[in-house]
C-alpha cells in the first residue's frame, strides 16, 4: 500500500488560509490503513482546525467526507454536489488521490494534507517500512523475495557490500542489511547458489517517467 503521513498542522493552516469553506476529504484505502487519511483522521484534523480557528477568531466552515478511494473516477463522482459548496478541498489521500480529485474538479483547488512517502507494509503497530520502488524490473525471484533496490540503502544489485556489520547497514546502523536478509532467506530455501549470480547494471528506463500502462 501507499504510505503517507500528515503534514504539520501549521503548514495545513497556512495552506487553507485564503479559503472560507473547506472540504476535508479522506481516502478509505491506503492512507486510512496507515492512519494518515481515513475517516478518523479526517475527524481529528477537522476538529483541530476548527479549534485553531476559534482560538484565532477565524470564521471558516468545514465539511468532512471520506471516499472509498480517491484515485478512481467512480469513487470521487459522489463529491460532485458537495464541491459546489466549498472553496477548496483539503485532501488526505496520497499524491495520486490529490491529482485525480483535482483533475475531476479542476475549478476547485485541491490541497495536499499529507506527504506521500513510499510503497510499503505495516511491520508492527504504528511502524511502516518501504518494500517496493516500482522500478518496473522485478528480480524478487532471484533474491528470496527481498528487494535489494529498495531495502539496501545503496540499492546494490550485487551485494552485500563491505559495510555490512552484524546484519546491519553501515549507512544507518538502525537498518537491516538487505543482502544479509537475502542470504538468510536463500539459505532457508536451499538456494544459496543464487548469491553467486552476477547482475549486470540495471536498465533504469524500464519505466519511463511518467509511467503509463495500456492493457493490450
Amino acid at each position, binding site marked *: 500500500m501507499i504510505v503517507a503521513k500528515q503534514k504539520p498542522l501549521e503548514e495545513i493552516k497556512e495552506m487553507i488560509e485564503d479559503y472560507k469553506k473547506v472540504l476535508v476529504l479522506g481516502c478509505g484505502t491506503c492512507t486510512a490503513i496507515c492512519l494518515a487519511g481515513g475517516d478518523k483522521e479526517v475527524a481529528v484534523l477537522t476538529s483541530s482546525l476548527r479549534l485553531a480557528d476559534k482560538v*484565532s477568531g477565524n470564521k471558516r466552515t468545514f465539511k468532512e467526507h471520506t471516499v472509498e478511494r480517491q484515485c478512481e473516477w467512480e469513487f470521487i463522482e459522489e463529491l460532485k454536489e458537495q464541491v459546489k459548496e466549498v472553496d477548496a478541498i483539503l485532501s488526505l489521500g496520497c499524491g495520486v488521490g490529490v491529482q485525480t480529485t483535482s483533475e475531476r474538479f479542476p475549478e476547485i483547488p485541491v490541497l495536499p494534507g499529507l506527504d506521500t512517502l513510499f510503497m510499503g507494509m505495516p511491520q508492527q503497530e504504528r511502524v511502516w517500512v518501504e518494500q517496493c520502488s516500482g522500478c518496473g524490473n522485478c528480480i524478487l525471484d532471484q533474491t528470496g523475495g527481498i528487494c535489494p533496490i529498495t531495502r539496501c540503502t545503496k540499492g546494490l544489485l550485487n551485494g552485500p557490500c563491505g559495510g555490512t556489520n552484524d546484519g546491519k547497514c553501515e549507512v544507518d546502523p538502525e537498518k537491516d542489511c538487505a543482502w544479509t536478509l537475502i542470504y538468510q532467506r536463500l539459505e532457508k530455501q536451499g538456494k544459496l547458489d543464487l548469491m553467486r549470480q552476477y547482475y549486470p547494471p540495471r536498465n533504469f528506463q524500464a519505466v519511463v517517467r511518467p509511467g503509463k500502462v495500456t492493457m493490450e
Partner: protein
Amino acid sequence: MTPENRFEPEIVAFCCHYCAYAAADLAGVMRLQYPTNIRIIEIPCSGTIDVLHLLKAFEQGADGVLVAGCLKGGCHFIEGNIRAERRVERAKNILDKVGLGKDRLEMFFMSSSEGARFAQVAREMTERVNKLGPSPIKGV
C-alpha cells in the same frame, strides 16, 4: 472579578468504570468534598477514549478535560490505560499547536479504593484550570 461573575471552570472528567468512577462514588460515600466543577462521564475503560472525544469536549466549551484510568498494570482490559495515556499525549500536542495549551488536559491513574485520591485530583485539576482562566474559545 466580582464574586458574582467569578470564573468557574467546566471540567469534563472521562472516568473508567472500574476505577475512577468507582473512586468518585467512594469519595461521595466517604463524604469527601471536592469542587463541583467536575462533570463526570463514565466510560467502560479509559482505553475507549479517543483523541476525537477529547478535542470535541474542548470544541464544545470545556475549560479543562481529565481522563482517569486504572493504575498501570491494573487495567481490566490489560492495556487500555496505556493506550489512553498515549492518546492523551497526542491530544495534548494538538492542543498546544492549536493554541489552547496542553495543560488543560491531563491523564490520571487511580484504583477504585482511592476515593480521597479522586477528590484530590478534582481539586488539583480545578485549581490548575482556574489559574489558566477560561478557554479562549468559550462562547465563540
